[in-house]
């Protein structure tokens, strides 16, 4: 058989009824402007998450606020040790006060944002830390003070190393890295990749149960197409849609300054996940009795499967995070290939199931 013939046959197949049905599905969605709604949701999620990240970082990471400093009033018997511990801090500057009253006066007058009231008791240092109440600074002051107190604790431990069985490890220096750097990759990005997948599955359920519910499947069956072809077409529309949406959002993230690596692999992952979820959705809607139970089963089922999958090495969310943050290893790529295999398997199982279903009984 010539190569030309194969291509011709392939083309003919592609032009088949499946594509017509897929096109119709997409047209319906665009006419209902539901796609627009989906994009708005994701834009909203992306925008809000940006807000959240910026908010969290400025709350907890003083390094991001230029020239920000906290003045601390130190008083009591262990003032010298406390002040020594503050030396390492970039943001916290300690000032010694002779008496507690003087320290609190400084606090009340706003010259100090924290008071470290120290005392030596039974060979320990006790510190009463006072932070401003209910102010935007509170979290920052407490977080920075905690750092200083931990430094003090380390110093004291080192001094008492003789009494310890295990000596604690030295801390690496703090270079002001963003502690929320991973948030974008491990929470936001999987959300943006898998939310369209979930919605696609949900629409696949609707698409089939609604035809059954309204009795329009009968009409469709008058046309010379088999149930498998109808289902194929509907599934195809959904499978095209979700990965494209996911990629759009990753592109937007990149524009926003979040570098996303392994775009092609992420596309494959999103496609594989969509195929699995849509196959699952179609399986459910063929088995369940009506739309309501199908939707319930689908959403509970997908959430359960997603949660269960997170117990596996290479869970979908983790795989997406590793790919995007550019920490992927051979096993990550293997996981993507695994999902692709699972997708082919799921599609095959559901097509077989569709073949078994008697359309007249739906």
């Amino acid at each position: 058989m010539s190569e030309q013939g194969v291509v011709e046959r392939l083309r003919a197949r592609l032009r088949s009824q499946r594509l017509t049905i897929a096109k119709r599905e997409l047209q319906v969605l665009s006419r209902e402007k539901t796609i627009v709604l989906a994009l708005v949701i994701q834009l909203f999620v992306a925008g809000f998450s940006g807000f959240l990240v910026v908010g969290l970082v400025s709350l907890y990471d003083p390094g991001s606020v230029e020239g920000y400093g906290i003045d601390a009033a130190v008083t009591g018997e262990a003032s010298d040790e406390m002040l020594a511990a503050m030396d390492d801090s970039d943001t916290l500057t300690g000032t010694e006060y002779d008496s507690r009253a003087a320290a609190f006066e400084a606090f009340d007058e706003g010259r100090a944002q924290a008071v470290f009231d120290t005392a030596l008791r039974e060979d320990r240092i006790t510190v009463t830390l006072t932070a401003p109440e209910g102010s935007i600074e509170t979290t920052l002051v407490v977080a920075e003070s905690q750092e200083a107190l931990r430094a003090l604790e380390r110093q004291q431990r080192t001094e008492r190393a003789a009494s310890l069985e295990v000596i604690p490890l030295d801390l690496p220096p703090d270079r002001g890295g963003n502690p929320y750097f991973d948030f974008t990759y491990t929470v936001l990005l999987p959300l943006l990749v898998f939310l369209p997948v979930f919605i696609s599955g949900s629409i696949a359920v609707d698409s089939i149960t609604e035809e059954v519910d309204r009795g329009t499947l009968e009409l469709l069956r008058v046309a010379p197409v088999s149930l498998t072809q109808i289902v194929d077409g509907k599934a195809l529309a959904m499978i095209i849609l979700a990965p494209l949406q996911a990629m759009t959002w990753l592109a937007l993230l990149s524009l926003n300054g979040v570098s996303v690596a392994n775009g092609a692999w992420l596309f494959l992952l999103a496609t594989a996940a969509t195929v699995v979820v849509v196959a699952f959705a179609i399986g459910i809607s063929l088995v369940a009795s009506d739309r309501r139970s199908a939707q319930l089963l689908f959403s509970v089922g997908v959430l359960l499967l997603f949660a269960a999958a997170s117990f596996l090495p290479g869970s979908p969310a983790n795989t997406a995070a590793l790919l995007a943050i550019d920490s992927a290893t051979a096993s990550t790529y293997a996981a993507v290939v695994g999902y692709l295999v699972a997708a082919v398997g799921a599609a095959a199982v559901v097509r077989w199931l569709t073949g078994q279903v008697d359309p007249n009984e739906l």
Partner: protein
Amino acid sequence: MSLRTRLRRIWRIARWEVSLGSTSLDRQTLLAGVALLLLAGGIAGAGLALGVDGLSPTQDIYRVGIDDDSPYYNVVADHAALSPQEPDREKLETGELDLIVAPAGNSGTVSLTVGGDDGEGVVEAGALGQSTVSVAHAPTEKGTAALTSFRAAVQGYNDRLMALEPNRTAAYPVSVRLQYRPQSSPTGARGGGSSETDAGSDDGTDTEGGDGAADDGSDGSNGGSDNDQSTDDDTNDGSTGDANLDVDDERDDPDVDNDDDSLLDGLLSGGNSQGSPAEISPPFPFSSLVLAFVFLVPMNFIIQAYGGTILNERINRRGELLLVAPIQRLDIVAGKTLPYLLAAVVAITGISLGVGGGLLSVAAVLPIALAFLASTFVGAMFARSFKELTFVTVTVSVFLTTYVFVPAIFTNVTPIALISPLTLVVMELQGEAVGLGGYVFATAPFFLGSTILFLLGVGVYREEDMFTQKPVPLKFLDAIDARLRGPKSVAVASALTIPFVFIGELLAIAALYVMPIEITVPLILVTIAAIEEVAKSIHIYAGIESDRFDRSIKTALLLGGLSGLGFFVGEKFTAIAQIVGLPELVLGQATLTPAGVTPATTLALFLGPLVLHTVTAAISALGARKDFRWYLVAMLAATLVHAAYNFAVVSAYV
């Protein structure tokens, strides 16, 4: 018709609804459900059997080069986010490693070019004193983030080591007690006065309770913990300070008490105020937030079923039978909603009992549940197909979840967090008291908004809207029109849009927040103007389109004036409610609604918004009397006028 008959009818419809729902869960569906559970359980079980410590989405995101005989190897291997690899400096430069922890010997200076910038090579983070180990990270944001993560991992590792130490004093040489104390602005306007009392007297003039009460509290709650001693009177020389500390003892201690009662305290203790430096925590209500989020989970399933049942009525004219029955439309909707509302209440109460919340949590989440149901109801009345309904449901849950959850994160930071009822839950879980004013402020917009949405939906719960395939915008206009009566109702409708305007403006601010400030401020001013103009004119357009009002210029001006007046009154009313309910919010509302709610000191400032609202609403109304295109043009003009006014006011204040 007597109230009893009505209630009985509602009840009957509710029972009917429940029986419908339960028959649809037939054997086949149940079997499929069980199969699903088994499959999910099997996958999770397989994961657990393989010995994978899963559940961490951050698994292995940072690759750390480290020798397996390094004292730090276990730190890296034990931490979920760090993955130990072969140390190879080359890989740090190629981006295959993010961090290297290696013996200090081989740390030669490396220089390479990254992104065209010279001297941005591998960053030596310095040698660690104790052993001969040095750390270097990749010259990227990820590299520094990896170092920060590694630092936290070492800290956690040390904490675990020390927990095993037999010598407690050497392992925990420092003990900390954290307390909070109100501080006035840095200028010291109020601070001067209070500091004098603190310094001058030792009998605690600015405290509400005496020493005894406070000490009782702390002893009772922390029973025998050795940190207590720092608060006791006989500890230190300066008794002046004790007077200060007692203020906060009272505030802090109920906190501790409540936490002790909570079921999950051991797992998720948040806001700790006493212990070793590692144990105190900033006032970030993480655990309470997680628990508060649990309240939102069942809502998603409830609205899915609820939206389904409402749309079901509209397919194949199934709801016609109920419509022709001698029952009021409101009763039909109430009956169909009741089972889902009850389900929500049961779920909320159950969760509240489970997480250690109280009546307040139930009372705070109830309006959220109502908002979920109300917006789903309207969505299901407008949707043309189940596909569309699915999008509506997802939209509703994403918007509402974000809207109630994100402010709750800032519970301890700013009182503006109270715009979300979930903040009340977080506060209760933390053991904070919530005043009636706070409750009303947080929940009233939700109650009001839900009521308005239900009324809108009930308006189109009629044959000509339910069983036709009109585009959503037309249905929306119909729904508004169904609520209009005379010109006066236009003013009322404008006032009633306030909760939605408030929500819309907040969302706009939050979404635009990330942009640079030069763009944000003008953009926000224009957006706010646009939102308010739409709110003031959309019902006028709806009324004119349906020929409820005639198209004369006189009517348009009258309607515009009334609409502006109604909006102005509503806006002023919320401003007053805010100031009365929450004095500390004055600052917040000035930033939130720059247009109307500016502090009105002079008559001109007070009347300014009134004139503005009536004029702009009249402009829109004049456009609305022609057609949709003219309406858009007129509204654009009104928005520009409004934005110019906003800009002038803001510039005058800044």
